[in-house]
């Protein structure tokens, strides 16, 4: 770290762009069946890990020791040891796992199983399946409320956000959103849930108390047909002021003012931008660009794309060590 500092000073780089702390990002490459490991200091791929078939949802465990990656075509979630960077274990998910969420303690994992309309509950310590929750057709997006009491699952063909009580594992409410809801994200203060609709082309803002859609974020890019705007991944800064929304084949990330729900800027990134992750210091936001096989690095404060990193084929999900 120190050496990097010195190099930075010696080479006379602007101090405003002081080098950030180095983090490690893991990217799932859906077509290559690999996970790329990116060092956020050098912005290079330091390792490519072979995993099971069709890796998509990917997330660090809360303690930062492992990375879980859903390999849908192998009907399991593989566990990568972050130290050795090798697959060490697998979890008993249901068929075709795609996205998952873990509780705050990192003990329970909730997995969306696209093929049989269920959410599977897994005990992470015992590596055991605790049960299933029946949801709508093609469950996908998963997120847990900051207090851990409510799990949200979106179903792509039913077009709903299902609110599930994590204690009773019962659905307590269903909120209709626009077509093909892909991803759900809570505001850190728990006052709103944002749900992206890929085909509907909107982000629905839901009041999690009233279970009602209270607003919608819409997108318009001059010169681009409406159908190309397909919102998927959402990232929200910790102060809940700014949201970033990946717009799929529009090849752009929208920056949204959370208070007014209006887009303030569109950033051109790689092709078919899908999911994203912040570095823990929130200086950078990394997006996966499926069709151009790369990851874009966004400087969050400057609201600029500063770097593109080539990864495997069809990069899908991304997670950064806590």
């Amino acid at each position, binding site marked *: 770290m120190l050496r990097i500092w010195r190099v930075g000073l010696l080479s006379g780089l602007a101090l405003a762009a002081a080098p950030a702390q180095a983090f490690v990002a893991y990217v799932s490459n859906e077509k290559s069946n690999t996970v790329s490991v990116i060092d956020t200091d050098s912005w290079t791929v330091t390792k490519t890990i072979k995993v099971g078939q069709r890796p998509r949802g990917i997330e660090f465990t809360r303690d930062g020791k492992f990375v879980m990656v859903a390999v849908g075509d192998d009907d399991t979630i593989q566990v990568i040891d972050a130290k050795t960077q090798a697959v060490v274990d697998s979890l008993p998910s249901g068929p075709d796992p795609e996205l998952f969420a873990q509780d705050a303690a990192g003990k329970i994992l909730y997995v969306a199983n696209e093929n049989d309309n269920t959410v599977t509950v897994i005990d992470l310590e015992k590596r055991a399946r605790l049960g299933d929750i029946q949801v709508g*057709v093609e469950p996908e997006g998963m997120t847990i409320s900051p207090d851990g009491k409510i799990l949200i699952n979106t179903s792509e*063909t*039913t*077009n709903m956000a299902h609110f599930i009580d994590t204690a009773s594992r019962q659905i307590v409410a269903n909120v209709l959103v626009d*077509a093909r809801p892909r991803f759900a994200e809570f505001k850190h203060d728990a006052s709103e849930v944002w749900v992206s609709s890929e085909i*509907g082309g909107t982000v629905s803002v839901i009041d999690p108390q009233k279970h009602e859609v209270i607003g919608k974020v819409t997108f318009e890019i001059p010169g681009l047909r*409406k*159908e190309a705007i397909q919102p998927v991944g959402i990232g929200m800064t910790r102060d809940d002021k700014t949201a970033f929304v990946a717009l799929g084949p529009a090849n752009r990330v929208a920056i949204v003012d959370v208070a007014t729900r209006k887009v303030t800027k569109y950033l051109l990134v790689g092709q078919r931008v899908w999911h994203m992750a912040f570095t823990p210091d929130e200086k950078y936001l990394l997006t996966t660009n499926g069709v151009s096989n790369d990851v874009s690095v966004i400087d969050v404060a400057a609201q600029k794309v500063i770097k593109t990193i080539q990864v495997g084929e069809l990069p899908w999900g991304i997670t950064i060590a806590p």
Partner: protein
Amino acid sequence: MIRWLVGLIGWSLAATSALAAEPAMIGVGYLGIAGTRSTLSLVEQPAENDGVAGARLAIEDNNTTGKFTGQRFALEERRIREGEDVVQAATALAEKNGFIIADLPADALLKVADALRNRGTLLFNAGAIDERLREVDCRANVIHTAPTRAMLADALGQYLVWKQWKRWLLVVGSHDEDKLFADALRRTATRFGAKIVQEKTFEDRGGARRTDSGVTLIQRQMPVFTQGAPAYDVLVAADESEVFGAYLPYRTWDPRPVAGSAGLVPRSWDASQDQWGAIQMQNRFIKLNARRMTALDMQAWTAVRMIGEATSRTNSGDVKKVADFIKGPDFSVAAFKGTRLTLRDWNLQLRQPILLVDGRMVVSVSPQEGFLHQVSELDTLGYDRPESKCKLK
């Protein structure tokens, strides 16, 4: 019958009391012709339940959603046998079903549409690709999920032109629907700047599609039939009747690719389509029906999903409300084609991307890049609003 009674009781409860716990019953009829047609390729031989199997899957999908919305969908299938009166059958089906998915020839569909007009039944044409049903013979109570011949021809033509295969040898069958497809292909060539260098007719002289030594004969026949054509890039076949199309690939005199009714074929759906989340749909379909999904299955699935989408958005099973919503500006449906599908409000045709398939893979999806449109690029496929002769009534 018992299920229907239960359904009716549920329906009346929901109608009379807003607090009714019973789900609202929504009846969907499926009206088709009994029996299947014979294809040249044995692997393409349609199943007895071609089409209705897709409707069945959509009913299941709708019912999964219906658990959360208090709606319950039921499907009633009716197949017409030769000599049976289609209007009578349709009227009986409409007794219990406010929505009917039809896989009927154009004339039969028009008879049904006109007979059911005053009843308020909403029809979905899942099978007929005839242009006239969306043009001079369009009806306000018929929504079309099947693409048209012009849409299919344009989808293929855009790709051939993009590929720079602009010189076409057109081979047309001797039946009426072959000629209609050839008309559509000629229109496409004119629109997109391809040239038909020569046209040939393949006369249907009868004969069996299954023979014990057919291959030897075909191998000798087809090169001779395509001999002596002016220089061309691609042979485009119009053979909806399944008389000769599938015999052409690899057997032309000149080594040229084949497209149209064989070779590279434009379709609304294919068993090999796995993009945009389609793999989940294909898996669900195989699990339910123990076979792969065809274009007709998809057209019926889409129709029933459109009903489900509208009933969940309007929170109603009322046919009029649902029909108004589907025809309105806010309607769209997701159907695993990478984009939302909407209705052309001037003739109630569903806009949709068209797949170009070779029997094993999806080769491309049209509209192709660079074919632009001021409203929707999907409207570069088929007849557009300014050309339309449809007056909805």
